C-alpha cells in the first residue's frame, strides 16, 4: 500500500465541551471551552470572571487601611502574602519606615504561608492526578500552620494581620518555639512526600513532557513565580528586586532542572514547589534565630493620607508576582488600585500550551499552574 487512506476520508468532527465552572478539578469556578478531537484537545479557551468581585473598584471606595481585609480574599490560600504585599506597597507609596521587628515578622508569616499554600497546591495537584491521599497529607500539615496563624492573629484563613506601618500584634509568647517545632516536624516530611508520590512512575509519566514552556516563552507571556522558575529561569523577586529583609537572608532560588522530562514541563513546576517548601523552612529557621526585639508598629496617623503619587510594588507570592499599582491623590482612599497577580498571567499562556494535549493533561496543566480563581478574577 503506497498511499494510505486519505486523511479527508477519516476526518472527524470536533467537539465543544464545556469544562467548568463546576468541575472537580478546575480549582474553583474556572471555565474552559474545550474543542476536542476525541480525547485530544485542539483548543482550550479559558473563560474567566465567574468570581469577579471588583476588588479594584472596592479599593477606590474604601480607606487605605480598610482595603487590608480584601487582600485576604485575593488569594485565600496565601492571605499573609497578599496582606504584606499590600502593606509594603502602601508604605512605599507613603514613604513609611516600619520597625525592624515588623519586617522580620512579615517575612516569617509570609514564608509560613508559602509553605501552607504550596502544600495545598501539591496536594490538590496530586488529587487531580488521581491520588487523593497526598491532598489530605497536605491539609494535615497545613492545619499546623493554621494553628500558628491562629496564635498570631486569631484567624485561620483570612488573617488581616499586616497593618500599614507594621503588623497588628506582636508574636505571642511561645510562638517561635512552636514554629521551630513545626520546622523540625515538617522538614523530614518533604522527603516522605517524595517517597510517597513524587517519583511514582505513574505520576512521572503523567507529568513529564506535558505543557512544556521554554524560559523564553515564560518571560514573553509574563509568567512569574514557580511557573516561571519551573522553566529553568532563576527569577525570584525576593532576589531580583529585594524588598524587606530578604537581602539579609540566605536561601536559594529553586529552578526546574528537567529532572525527568523536558525542561519546563509540568513535573518541573511540581518539583519547584516541593523544593521551595524546603527553602521556606530554611528562611523560617533563620528568622527564628535572628528576629530582633522592638516595636511592631510605626507611628501612622489615624486618618492616613499618603501624599499624591504613584507606586508599583511587586512581591513574590506563592503563585507568582503579586503587584500593586497604587495611585494616590492625597486623599483618604486610593485613586486607582490595580492588582497584578500570578494566576491571571498563567491563564494567559494556557490557550497556547493546551493545544494538542489530552483532556487528562488539561487537568495536569491547571494543577501545575496552581491557579486560584479569586486571584485571576479579583
Amino acid at each position, binding site marked *: 500500500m503506497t498511499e494510505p487512506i486519505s486523511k479527508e476520508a477519516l476526518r472527524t468532527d470536533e467537539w465543544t465541551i464545556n469544562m467548568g465552572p463546576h468541575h472537580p478539578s478546575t480549582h474553583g469556578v474556572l471555565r474552559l471551552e474545550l474543542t476536542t478531537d476525541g480525547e485530544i484537545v485542539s483548543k482550550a479557551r479559558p473563560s474567566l*470572571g465567574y468570581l469577579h468581585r471588583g476588588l479594584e*473598584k472596592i479599593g477606590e471606595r474604601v480607606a487605605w487601611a480598610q482595603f487590608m481585609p480584601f487582600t485576604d480574599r485575593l488569594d485565600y490560600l496565601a492571605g499573609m502574602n497578599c496582606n504584606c504585599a499590600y502593606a509594603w506597597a502602601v508604605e512605599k507609596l507613603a514613604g513609611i519606615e516600619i520597625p525592624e521587628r515588623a519586617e522580620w515578622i512579615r517575612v516569617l508569616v509570609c514564608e509560613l504561608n508559602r509553605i501552607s499554600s504550596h502544600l495545598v497546591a501539591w496536594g490538590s495537584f496530586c488529587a487531580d492526578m488521581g491520588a487523593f491521599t497526598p491532598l489530605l497529607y497536605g491539609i494535615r500539615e497545613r492545619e499546623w500552620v493554621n494553628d500558628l496563624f491562629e496564635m498570631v492573629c486569631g484567624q485561620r484563613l483570612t488573617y488581616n494581620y499586616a497593618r500599614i506601618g507594621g503588623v497588628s500584634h506582636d508574636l505571642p509568647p511561645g510562638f517561635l518555639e512552636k514554629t521551630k517545632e513545626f520546622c523540625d516536624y515538617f522538614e523530614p516530611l518533604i522527603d516522605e512526600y517524595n517517597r510517597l508520590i513524587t517519583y511514582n512512575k505513574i505520576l512521572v509519566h503523567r507529568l513529564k513532557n506535558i505543557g512544556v514552556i521554554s524560559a523564553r516563552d515564560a518571560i514573553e507571556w509574563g509568567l512569574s513565580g514557580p511557573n516561571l522558575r519551573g522553566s529553568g529561569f532563576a527569577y525570584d523577586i525576593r532576589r531580583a528586586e529585594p524588598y524587606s529583609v530578604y537581602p539579609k537572608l540566605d536561601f536559594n532560588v529553586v529552578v526546574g532542572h528537567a529532572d525527568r522530562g523536558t525542561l519546563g514541563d509540568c513535573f518541573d513546576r511540581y518539583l519547584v514547589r516541593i523544593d521551595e517548601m524546603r527553602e521556606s523552612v530554611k528562611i523560617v529557621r533563620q528568622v527564628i534565630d535572628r528576629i530582633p526585639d522592638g516595636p511592631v508598629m510605626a507611628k501612622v496617623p489615624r486618618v492616613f493620607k499618603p501624599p499624591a503619587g504613584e507606586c508599583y510594588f511587586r512581591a513574590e507570592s506563592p503563585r507568582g508576582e503579586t503587584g500593586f499599582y497604587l495611585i494616590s491623590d492625597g486623599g483618604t482612599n486610593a485613586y486607582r488600585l490595580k492588582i497584578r497577580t500570578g494566576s491571571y498571567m498563567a491563564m494567559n499562556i494556557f490557550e497556547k500550551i493546551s493545544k494538542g494535549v489530552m483532556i487528562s493533561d488539561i487537568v495536569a496543566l491547571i494543577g501545575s499552574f496552581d491557579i486560584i480563581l479569586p486571584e485571576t478574577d479579583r
Partner: protein
Amino acid sequence: MKTLSAQEIFEKLKGKFGDGVVSLQTESVNPPFAVVPPGSIQEVCRFLKEDPDLLFDYLVCISGVDHKDKFAVAYHVYSTEHRHRIGVKAMLPHDNPVIPTVDVVWKAAIYLERETYDLMGIVFEGSCDPNRILLPDDWEGHPLRKDYIYPEQYHGIKI
C-alpha cells in the same frame, strides 16, 4: 548585566525617538514613567524590548487610569537581563481612548490589555483578542471608569 537608571533609559529613548517621547515623570512616582504619545507606543516598546542595552523582555503590568479628563495607560516593564525597570505612560483623550496594541511586542499583553479594555474601556487597536474577559460579553459600560453608573439589573437579575 548593566543596570541603567531611569534617566539613562530615558536618554536612550530620547536619542532614538527625539520628539517621539515627551517627558520623564519622576516626581513622587516609583518607578519613573517615560511619557510617550499613544501613536508611537508600539515602536517605543519594541525598542525597549530589543535594544541590547535595555532588553525589557518582561511586561509586568498594564494599567488603565481614569483621570476624569483623560485616560492614562501605564506599562510597567522589567528587564530580566539587566534587572532595571521603568514605566511607560501614554495619555489618551477621554472621549475616544484608542491606543495601538503591544501584544505584538510582548504576548503577556494579551490578557492585560483585555482586562484593561474590559474594566476601563480603553480600546487596543489591532489586538489579537479584543474581547471582554472578566465581565460577560454583553455587559454595558466599563466599571473602573470614574463616571460609571451602576446598573440596576442584569438580564432581569437584580444586582
